[in-house]
Each structure stands twice: as structure tokens, then as C-alpha cells.
């Protein structure tokens, strides 16, 4: 609550959405993204972090034709249009999965585990998917 602030007559809180699950195998990544999009309408201080298998949500070249599911990866590119611009990826999660920043479909800030932990500490609300 220390980070809570009053701006333009409303409460502004720091919200972090922490994505830890791979897409398609379960619905959490997709339904998590739906929460992120809605949150944009509330003028909060929103950030997204990708940790563990959550970094797989951002891989380039997803093609869901064969599994007949909706490919929602282009939506991450649209987040900028919702003024959601703080995207963090934890370095160790990315590297241990054989990925580099070039493999990701959006620009992100790569953070160490300790840096991400410090960012989490600053939040008012953390919702993990």
C-alpha cells in the first residue's frame, strides 16, 4: 500500500501480472492475457513479468493450425497500444530454455532473478498465472 497514490481523483496501484505457464497446454496464459487487457481500462500502473515456462508465451513463430486452437501470441504485440509497456523477462528462465531475446516476439527488459524479486516487492497487487 506504500506505493498507492492518488492521481486524477482515482487510486493508482502497482499491478504486476506474473506469467509462469506455457501457452496452449493449459488456458492460464490466454485467460491471464484477458485480465491484462481489461486492466488497461483502469489507469493503473501495470507491468507484466515472464518467468519459468511463461517465457514460452513470447516465442516467435507460433502456428496453431495443427492443434486447431486460437493463436493469441499477436496480442502481446498489441499491448503497447493499451499503454502496457513494462514487460520483464527473467534471464535464467529464458536462457535455461535455450531462448535469447531474438527469439521473442516483443521487446522486453531482461532482469535477473534478484531484480525481478525487487520489482515484485514494490507491487501493491501481484496476480500470477
Amino acid at each position, binding site marked *: 500500500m506504500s506505493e498507492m497514490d492518488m492521481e486524477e481523483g482515482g487510486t493508482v496501484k502497482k*499491478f504486476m501480472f506474473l506469467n509462469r505457464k506455457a501457452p496452449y497446454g493449459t488456458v492460464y496464459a490466454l*485467460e491471464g492475457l484477458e485480465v491484462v487487457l481489461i486492466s488497461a*481500462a*483502469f489507469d493503473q500502473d501495470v507491468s507484466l513479468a515472464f518467468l519459468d515456462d511463461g517465457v514460452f508465451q513470447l516465442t516467435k513463430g507460433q502456428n496453431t493450425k495443427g492443434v486447431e486452437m486460437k493463436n493469441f501470441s499477436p496480442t502481446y504485440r498489441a499491448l503497447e497500444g493499451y499503454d502496457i509497456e513494462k514487460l520483464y523477462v527473467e534471464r535464467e528462465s529464458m536462457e535455461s530454455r535455450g531462448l535469447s531475446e531474438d527469439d521473442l516476439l516483443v521487446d522486453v527488459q531482461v532482469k535477473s532473478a534478484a531484480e525481478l524479486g525487487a520489482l515484485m516487492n514494490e507491487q501493491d497487487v501481484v496476480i500470477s498465472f
Partner: protein
Amino acid sequence: MKFSIMVNEGPYTHQASDSAYQFAKAALAKGHEIYRVFFYHDGVNNATRLTVPPQDDRNVVNRWSELAQQQKLDMVVCIAAAQRRGLLDENEASRQGKDANNIVPGFRISGLGQLVEAGIQADRLVVFGD
């Protein structure tokens, strides 16, 4: 203090709904306020009035429904998650042309914005899931 609670898994399959219920009861017993309980993902399945659990087990749905009515809790089922999984109130059923509805008293169906608002208005948001 003001709490919001998020429940992400359905009854019986995961313990998440049980833990959330016990947490809610304990918070109320300590004099805290519960601003909202928000049911998302498979958590929407906690709101069906059609369950018939074994006699020797707890009734997860009825427990929530009774707590909501006794304590005037605001219990919200996410509409998008509910539509994916087949949870409907009378209103939604008629709007969608469905011939039945299955929501138990004590829950209401609304949008995802209610979750974000629950995070803004409460002092703490506690998430229970898989």
C-alpha cells in the same frame, strides 16, 4: 483490513476452493472485511447448483453459497470464463438462447473488470489456484 480473494479452480478437483473458503471464514472470524471473492478459470465451476457430492464429503458449492448469504459476501463469477465452461444464470441463458441455467444463489456473473477493481479497492488480494 479489507481482503479480496481470487479462486481459480473448481470444486473437488483442486484444494484451491477449499483453502480459499477456510481463509475467508478465518478472515471474517477475525473481524476483517471481504470486499469480493472473484471466481476465474475453472473457479467458475464452484457456482453450479447441480452438484451432488457424496454424502460423506463436504459440499463445496453449498458452503460458498451459504457463506455468501450469511455474510452478504460479494461473490463474482467471471462471465468470459463462465461462458467457456457452461455456467449461466437465467439472464445469460436467455440472452444466449440456452434452455437451462445452473448458477446457485449467492453468486453473480459479471466482467473481469470486477477482478481489477477488487485489487484496487482491497488492501490485499489473495489468489488460490493450481
